[in-house]
């Protein structure tokens, strides 16, 4: 043990009783938590869960409402959104300061630009109610993924980067559904789709900061 001490500062008198009590408590915890799940397995399960919910929801919307016109043109964007979502989950679950989080953010921005480019400038909101419904749907479809992402974020110490990356994963779900169900113009997308995505990201940040974590590991 390379533990050196400044002679000016007295070493606090370590309470062996306290150390023994902590050891006993930690050992009891160790005996009760026998299953070790690697972070990779947790991340893979979370990706399956978040992507699965997003895809199932998208299928339901497509079947019930019928896909938006020109959906085939948007397939690359849908793929990019799903990839960004998966990369974001992997990024915030990883104990390393990995490039996945940055890559997910970059891909999400590219997908956002693509969404705007394909929508074009026209076709604004068709009345306040139409836009409101889109925003509410966006928020509603993000609720289940929000719960899943918060569960994943709680597995390790909170950090701004992790919270933001979790938000990117959430934003992906709503944006993907929006691409399938809505064909309105750029102004509508910015206000009601991107706006709702920002609200979800903010909710993810605030809730993850507030909820107690299950471990303070990185």
């Amino acid at each position, binding site marked *: *043990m*390379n*533990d*050196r*001490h*400044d002679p*000016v*500062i*007295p*070493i*606090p*008198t*370590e*309470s062996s009783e*306290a*150390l023994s*009590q*902590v*050891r006993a*408590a*930690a*050992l009891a*915890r*160790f*005996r009760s*938590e*026998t299953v*070790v*799940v*690697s*972070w990779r*397995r*947790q991340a893979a399960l979370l990706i399956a869960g978040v992507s699965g919910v997003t895809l199932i929801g998208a299928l339901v919307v497509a079947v019930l409402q019928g896909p938006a016109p020109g959906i085939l043109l948007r397939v690359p964007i849908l793929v990019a959104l799903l990839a960004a979502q998966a990369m974001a989950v992997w990024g915030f679950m990883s*104990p*390393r*300061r990995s490039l996945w989080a940055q890559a997910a953010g970059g891909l999400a921005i590219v997908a956002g630009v693509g969404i705007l480019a394909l929508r074009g400038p026209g076709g604004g909101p068709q009345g306040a109610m139409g836009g409101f419904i889109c925003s509410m749907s966006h928020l509603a479809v993000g609720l289940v993924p929000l719960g899943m992402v918060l569960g994943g974020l709680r*597995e*390790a*110490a*909170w*950090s701004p980067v992790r919270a933001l990356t979790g938000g990117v994963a959430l934003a992906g779900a709503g944006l993907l559904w929006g691409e399938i169900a809505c064909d309105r113009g750029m102004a509508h997308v910015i206000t009601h789709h991107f706006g709702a995505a920002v609200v979800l990201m903010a909710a993810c940040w605030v809730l993850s900061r507030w909820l107690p*974590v*299950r*471990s*303070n*590991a*990185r």
Partner: protein
Amino acid sequence: MTLVQQMWTTTPLGDVVAPDPSVEDDRLMAQFCIGHEAAFDEIYRRHATSVHSFLRRMVGQPDLADDLLQNTFFSVVRARGRYLPGTSLRSWIFTIAANTARDARRRARVRADLVRAHGVDEGSVDPIHPDPPAARALQQALADLPDDQREAVLLHKMQGLGFAEVAEVLGISVGAAKVRAHRGYEKLRARLGALEETT
């Protein structure tokens, strides 16, 4: 043969060679992950005292430090699947301890009114073990440092971690760790210099 004895290797000429720390850490953690209590005990024996000392200096309250040590080792148990083989176990545990202390201080700030109502003075000097005046002044000066600088100073100066390890624990670059510690030392020097002049 005990777990620790197994980690020492013997050359063909019979010389006993100390193990590579990271290999040793990996073996300990591997045993820990498959449920060996001996591995847990060894990890606890090696790191609990220095982590406890770090936490006491970080929060200045012995009882709170005991709670944080417990939370730190609960996190070690819970998050053992997040340990990355090939990395320093000491840095990993100190990272958890630093995060635990930071989280506790943040939550204490949020509950500041409640804490004040119960008469707990955050960052106060341990009342059970009165220190000599110089040490008390230094401990108070440490408590007055911003969290990030205090962490860097304590980890480097008191716990003996190299700047590379300090950087790993705090999740910053080596350069940033040096800057934080340097700024902390400068503030300590200024504060203690001013105290000396007044006495």
